[in-house]
């Protein structure tokens, strides 16, 4: 009842304040090197953004582990595939990495390679939840993918998570199973403790006992009767401890220990290195909120390639004159992570097979600043990283890593 009142009050206040939700979870507090040079997510897709309580949805996508991995981040030797949500507002049903079950962690993912994840999730707490895929790396913590708002409708109390054990027991709800048993034991122990404490607290306590003890009359404070009571209580305790243990062992004979251990999974097949990108110079115009790159692109494949997209830290700069690049944008992708004016290129014609061309690339948007991705002035390691997506006329996509040192500059004053 109280809980309902609190929730009601919270909803009212939120409504009156008319607050628009910005991106959540504090991922913007993560340093640029953690977000632009480690895990690059792409093709992230939410199968639904409106679900009911107990309704399933899927979160799929791929990621590339960048080769220019920063010193400050532990290499991906132990990795867990996860999702980030504001508390357990969703339930995890199944997760996969390259088709392998991902309930446990993975050992030694390879840098420079791609992986594909799939998560089956279920709505649990009604409301609007900001959900990200995330790759946790031991020693460095969670590196997050693009977040999307998922609206969960329905009643909180109607959520249940039934599961069947290997012993054949059908459990109604994982949230409550075994709880009454555990709480019952705790109450039993508290009852014994309360009896013992009240046996002593009912007597004169601090000052009288201390005074009596000062006079050497310990015999008044601890009587034979008290010692006897102590022996009886210890017998009760021992019976409860070992009797309880024997009973629990008899009741649950097929228990298993907690399961741990790392799995190993092969990366996706490497895509042929059709495009080679060399960054000649890179600058970030601080007041202009603009990243300018001079690149040398070599097409080593057999098809002409057009630059379609620059993506880093889940922010996407698209070449808006290339339809195939625009078609690659999933409708469920968060709009505030797609730069409005897109990518500006010095030459927009396809790069022919065998050709090496210098292309100047300009990505301008306030999002650099708002996502806090450009604190190059305060970083010890002023580098950037990202993926360049190129497309052949037949729609084939080539994903190339790019990155290198970057220099912050100020617009020349006239």
């Amino acid at each position: 009842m109280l809980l309902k009142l609190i929730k009601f009050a919270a909803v009212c206040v939120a409504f009156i304040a008319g607050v628009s939700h910005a991106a959540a979870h504090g991922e913007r507090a993560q340093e640029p090197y953690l977000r632009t040079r480690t895990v690059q997510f792409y093709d992230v897709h939410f199968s639904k953004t409106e679900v009911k309580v107990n309704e399933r949805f899927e979160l799929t996508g791929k990621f590339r582990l960048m080769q220019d991995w920063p010193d400050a981040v532990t290499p991906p030797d132990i990795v867990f595939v996860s999702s980030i949500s504001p508390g357990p507002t969703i339930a995890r049903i199944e997760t996969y990495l390259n088709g392998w079950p991902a309930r446990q962690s993975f050992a030694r993912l390879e840098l420079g390679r791609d992986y594909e994840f799939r998560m089956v999730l279920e709505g649990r707490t009604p409301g609007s939840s900001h959900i990200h895929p995330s790759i946790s790396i031991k020693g460095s913590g969670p590196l997050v993918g693009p977040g999307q708002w998922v609206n969960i409708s329905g009643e909180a109390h109607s959520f249940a998570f039934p599961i069947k054990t290997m012993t054949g027991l059908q459990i109604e709800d994982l949230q409550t199973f075994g709880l009454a048993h555990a709480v019952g034991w705790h109450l039993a122990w508290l009852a014994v403790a309360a009896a013992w404490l009240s046996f002593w607290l009912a007597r004169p306590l601090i000052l009288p006992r201390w005074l009596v003890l000062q006079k050497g009359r310990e015999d008044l404070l601890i009587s034979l009767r008290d010692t006897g009571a102590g022996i009886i209580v210890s017998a009760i305790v021992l019976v409860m401890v070992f009797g309880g243990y024997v009973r629990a062992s008899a009741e649950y004979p097929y228990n298993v220990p907690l399961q741990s251990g790392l799995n190993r999974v092969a990366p996706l097949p490497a895509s042929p290195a059709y495009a080679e990108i060399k960054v000649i110079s890179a600058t970030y115009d601080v007041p202009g909120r603009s990243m300018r790159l001079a690149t040398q692109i070599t097409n080593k494949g057999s098809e002409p390639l057009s630059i379609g997209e620059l993506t880093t830290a889940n922010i996407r700069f698209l070449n808006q004159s290339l339809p195939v690049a625009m078609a690659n944008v999933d409708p469920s992708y968060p709009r505030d992570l797609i730069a409005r004016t897109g990518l500006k290129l010095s030459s927009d014609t396809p790069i022919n097979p065998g050709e090496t061309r210098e292309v100047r690339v300009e990505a301008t948007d306030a999002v650099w600043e708002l996502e806090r991705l450009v604190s190059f002035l305060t970083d010890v390691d002023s580098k950037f990283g990202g993926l360049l997506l190129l497309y052949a006329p037949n729609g084939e996509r080539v994903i190339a890593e790019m990155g290198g040192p970057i220099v912050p500059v100020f617009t020349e004053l006239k």
Partner: protein
Amino acid sequence: MEADQCKLKVDSYFMHFTGYQPQSSRAEFCEDIPEVGRTIIVLDFVDQSLRDIPVSVNLARDDGARTGDTMNTPSSILYIPPKKYPNGTIKIDVNFEQAGRYIGMVAIENGERNVAKFPFDVGRGWSLIRLLAWCLVLVSAAIGTFLWALRRNAIAQNLPAASEK
């Protein structure tokens, strides 16, 4: 954006204010600008929807009398007429020739006209003086209290001595 106190609110939209004086330092300023001279002020739109709304900017000397007109007036030193900014960022290049108090006004035209004002100081180094003044007040208050307590204490100690005689 590091220590984010520099937010402006226009209607229900938020913008973020940053000042740069690249000729003298690489620092970012929030509101108050330490020196006169060439300055770049950047306003970043926090809310995506601001990018579809025409925004005008007016920087003027704060002469005390004006009530906040966003039109180009004689006291204006810079005026940018309403315009959309799809990149979500406004870069203002301005030269402050005199030290003093200025007022910035940002107006958005989403059906009706909404104005946000942000007063700021240029070339005053004002905050350091204010800090020192506060320190001085606190220290003198502490010393005063201590002396006063000492004196009271001395009186109290003398009293029983006097009554004993």
